[in-house]
């Protein structure tokens, strides 16, 4: 596709369940980012991949959060034992090169609600 694709668009889970969120970046984009966006706030950085390598996971809020990009294209963000505070919109973005001045291109996000 032409843009960044995320699925599902909406996810409702009970507290304690595990969830997996998928991101399909723009074809050929080297860099992939995950963000968490709370209502009325700007995105907050979670983690960054360059191809299949996870170069920065400093923004992951706890060890319940795990991200992977095994073949350097599609990425999955997994949240284990979900808590209510995990409710947010999770955004994925990709960028064509590791460095350079291009902006990040965002998907529509996955809105996660934990009951």
């Amino acid at each position, binding site marked *: 596709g032409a843009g960044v694709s995320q699925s599902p668009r909406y996810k409702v889970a009970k507290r304690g369940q595990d969830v997996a969120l998928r991101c399909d970046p723009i074809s050929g984009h080297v860099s992939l980012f995950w963000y968490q966006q709370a209502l009325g706030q700007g995105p907050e950085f979670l983690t960054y991949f360059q191809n299949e390598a996870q170069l920065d996971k400093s923004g992951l809020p706890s060890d319940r959060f795990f991200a992977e990009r095994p073949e350097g294209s599609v990425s999955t963000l997994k949240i284990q034992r979900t808590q209510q505070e995990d409710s947010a919109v999770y955004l994925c973005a990709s960028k064509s090169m590791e460095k350079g001045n291009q902006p990040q291109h965002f998907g*529509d996000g996955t809105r996660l609600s934990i009951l």
Partner: protein
Amino acid sequence: ELKVEQNPLFLSMQEGKNYTIYCNYSTTSDRLYWYRQDPGKSLESLFVLLSNGAVKQEGRLMASLDTKARLSTLHITAAVHDLSATYFCAVDFDMDSNYQLIWGAGTKLIIKP
């Protein structure tokens, strides 16, 4: 601490008026991005500002960057309803890695007919 502050956070204005949104940041950077977000939608890139004095314009929007003052502005000229959205600035503080952006809280802009 790396901080990006936008003001105002909320702005309601009449069509046809001019206004400016401000983005201040805490530490030296010469790479700043403006994005637009409609409710329930993705973030859309508007401008990339890469050097002191950079000015870019697209339609009724104009963005500028003053790296010495650590300030960027997004100016709206003769506002129209279609420009209603939330506008974010994001600053790249890490030149070497060039990947971690710090985001402002956003300015929610409502333009009334």
